């Protein structure tokens, strides 16, 4: 916890204050990390989002048919994806794929004396390694979330169009009529908070690895477990905040 707070303080310094004093972070490395963290996760994220969109539509159609409320399926799919399932599921994918990879990579560097070598060369590891990953995650997780929302809604449309005889125009009208811009924004606020939690936990666990290959393995497991736990808690808190305060 203490180490995590210290990492946050250093991140603030190296990401925001130091560039103003002429010590910028590497833009090229940030883009490289954006590809590794975000772009490479696209196929998996779209697959998950599509399957969730499909199942959500099928499950709700089954229940709503009993109430004669099949017309509400697009509303339900769109709103639950935008507000809740989109940010949450994409974050789970990114934790499993990119968060663990970041911890393992930094941990291996720590074990191989690479971090120490950077420090001795007067290159701050937080500026050199953590800041590009942090910025990449902060941009790519919300971007992936928007993408996942779209794919998920397309999945909902597939079910509505082919199984419920909804026509496309009606689906779009219905969905865009019911979902407001705020539904999207609240999901994006969540995914920015998730991004910050995931990458800071992953980096901190990686930089604090001790004790060889076993240490790297333990740190990776801990990183995934803590990221998911903290993300779910943050999700509950944020949903409560949006529900009661706004």
């Amino acid at each position, binding site marked *: 916890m203490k180490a995590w707070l210290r990492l946050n303080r250093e991140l603030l310094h190296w990401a925001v204050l130091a560039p103003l004093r002429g010590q910028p972070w590497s833009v090229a490395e940030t883009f490289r990390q954006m590809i590794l963290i975000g772009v490479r996760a696209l196929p998996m994220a779209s697959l998950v989002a599509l399957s969730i969109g499909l199942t959500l539509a099928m499950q709700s159609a089954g229940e709503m048919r009993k109430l004669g409320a099949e017309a509400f399926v697009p509303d339900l799919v769109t709103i639950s994806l935008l507000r809740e399932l989109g940010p949450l599921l994409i974050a789970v994918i990114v934790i499993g794929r990119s968060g663990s990879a970041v911890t393992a*990579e930094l941990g*291996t*560097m720590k074990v*191989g*004396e*690479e971090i*120490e*070598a*950077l*420090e*001795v*060369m*007067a*290159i*701050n590891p937080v500026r*050199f390694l953590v800041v590009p990953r942090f910025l990449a995650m902060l941009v790519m997780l919300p971007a992936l979330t928007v993408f996942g929302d779209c794919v998920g809604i397309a999945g909902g449309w597939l079910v509505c169009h082919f199984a419920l005889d909804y026509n496309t125009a009606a689906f779009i009208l219905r969905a865009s009529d019911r979902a407001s811009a705020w539904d999207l924004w609240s999901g994006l606020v969540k995914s920015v908070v998730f991004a910050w939690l995931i990458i800071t936990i992953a980096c901190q666990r990686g930089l604090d690895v001790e004790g060889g290959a076993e240490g790297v393995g333990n740190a990776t497991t801990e990183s995934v477990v803590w990221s998911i736990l903290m993300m779910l808690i943050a999700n509950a808190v944020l949903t409560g905040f949006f529900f009661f305060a706004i």
Partner: protein
Amino acid sequence: MMPIIEVENLVRSFRGRRVLDGLTFSVNKGDTMVIMGGSGCGKSTVLRHLIGSLKPDAGAIRLFGEDIVPMDEAALANTRRRFGVLFQSGALLQSLTLAENVALPIVEHSAQLDPNIIDLMVKMKLEMVGLTGFDQLKPAEISGGMKKRVGLARALALDPELLFSDEPTAGLDPIMVAVVDELTMDLTKKLGMTAVVVTHDMTSAFRIATKMIMLGTGPSQGKIIAAGTPAEIREHESPEVQQFIRGEADGPTPLRMCQADYVERLIGHPRHRRRDFPS
């Protein structure tokens, strides 16, 4: 002349075990100081204190006249720009090519340089360690000895005033040992660089050293048991030093233990022996 490195009464313990016990020595400009001693005697630990990776429990370490022990990160970073370090494993960044590894300190500390000039500097440094043409390989694709030489090229990238090497010749073939030794001697004699080398390769140590210290093991753990010029060390009267530089198995540093209690050591003390089968 003011010494480049001054270490005073350096003390460091790990989990109650005193690894360094009151070391005091100094290194002048242009000297090549060799730190020797058996495995586990704390040679690398001394080096890691000198480069600021570890903080001592007590004592002062002055580099270029300034004590690095109480320094904060920023001040330490300024001092670190003036020296190069070769790690035992080479410690290259696995995600970068060899050329990018060598270029790293140059790019980070003199970003305004033209990329062509950086490229030229990198090629010069790789040429120095005999690795021309390998610049686009990744560290995982080369041998341990080559990694070490790239590590040396990286340590020398900014033409440091001071070079720390941790076992620079371990894992190299005899010809490459000579090349690395000559490189170190060239740099100290012609450019006035100062070098601190940790090694237990005696041929190499006596070839490059202008000063030597030897750390003790066992009862004299963490203390300097001999210090002086290579000639003085060669003639040193301590049997421990003589055993070490001649590389003999028998001597004051016990390697073979007593034959008498061999069985007892293997199966534990008779009083603690398992009693679940009749003897």
